[in-house]
């Protein structure tokens, strides 16, 4: 210490304090650097151009498909066998590669004056997850062992979640079959669902698995008001 004092002479304390200031500044700047993850504009343009191209391709293919169908005079309904229909309706158990999304309520302590409702999982959160998974091409989805069908509901029932009129409490496990990479990315996307939920400390864990099992829908379908009619051009 004496030696340092002799070298620096009077004013060593200022030097010392400056060292601390520099240290703090650089760590702070570094943290900010890491936070800066804005997508550059050029990339956005590139991607939107790509989307337009692929959409055009898709439309062309759809036209081709309908042309071919007219040619052979097969309606898409006839292409489906009974087994396929059962699968599509969610009446068969399915297996395949997919993701398992585990969610649990926040483990953050609620600050005084803050709404504790912000820190628990709501039906909207699950809906957003399911929406993302479907957009990413999920073929079958189940929530806590309840298969999602075309008429399944997802809603809050008190502190629990009701799916297919069966209630379950957190932790929730959403299982989806599909391309596991795109499913995983759809949830983990920057600024996506996972990021939004993590702000509130909600624990969410996405795992892509080679083989997941999805149970069939065990309820029944009731069609009291709807009746089948010929297709109309609106």
């Amino acid at each position, binding site marked *: 210490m004496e030696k340092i004092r002799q070298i620096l002479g009077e004013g060593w304390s200022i030097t010392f*304090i400056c060292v601390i200031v520099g240290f703090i500044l650089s760590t702070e700047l570094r943290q900010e650097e890491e936070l800066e993850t804005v997508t550059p504009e050029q990339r956005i343009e590139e991607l939107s151009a790509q989307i337009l191209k692929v959409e055009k391709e898709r439309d062309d293919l759809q036209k081709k498909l309908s042309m071919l169908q007219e040619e052979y005079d097969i309606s898409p309904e006839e292409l489906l066998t009974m087994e396929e229909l059962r699968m599509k309706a969610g009446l068969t158990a399915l297996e395949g590669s997919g993701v398992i999304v585990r969610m649990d309520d926040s483990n953050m302590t609620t600050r005084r004056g803050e709404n504790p409702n912000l820190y628990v999982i709501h039906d909207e959160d699950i809906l957003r997850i399911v929406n993302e998974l479907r957009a990413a091409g999920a073929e079958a989805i189940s929530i806590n062992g309840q298969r999602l069908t075309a008429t399944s509901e997802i809603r809050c029932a008190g502190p629990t979640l009701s799916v297919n009129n069966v209630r379950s409490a957190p932790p929730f496990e959403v299982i989806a079959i599909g391309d596991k990479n795109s499913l995983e990315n759809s949830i983990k996307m920057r600024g996506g669902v996972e990021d939004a939920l993590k702000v509130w400390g909600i624990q969410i864990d996405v795992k892509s698995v080679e083989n997941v099992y999805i149970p069939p829908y065990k309820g029944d379908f009731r069609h009291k008001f709807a009746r089948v009619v010929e297709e109309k051009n609106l």
Partner: protein
Amino acid sequence: MKALIGLTAGFFLGYIFQVPVDEKIFAVIMLAAIDSICGGFSAKLNSNFNDTILICGFFTNLIFGLILILLGNFFELELYYIALLIFGLRIFKNISAAQELFLKK
């Protein structure tokens, strides 16, 4: 000059050892340091500059500021604003004192 050397040395140290700093602690350390530097400057103009007193003052201020942060976290109150406010006041007071002395000379 010495200050610049210190700043660069600290910058490199911070770059090598990546320490995550809480923003409250960051604010308190930053203001305590600026306060000490301003205090030192005005003391120098007053020609009663003393290294030991300056460094002791810096550390006592810093430690009390950190205690306020801890207390604030414990009671979930933003107590550290007190430290920031006082440091800010002292900085401006020192600057104005230094300016007065400078103009008198």
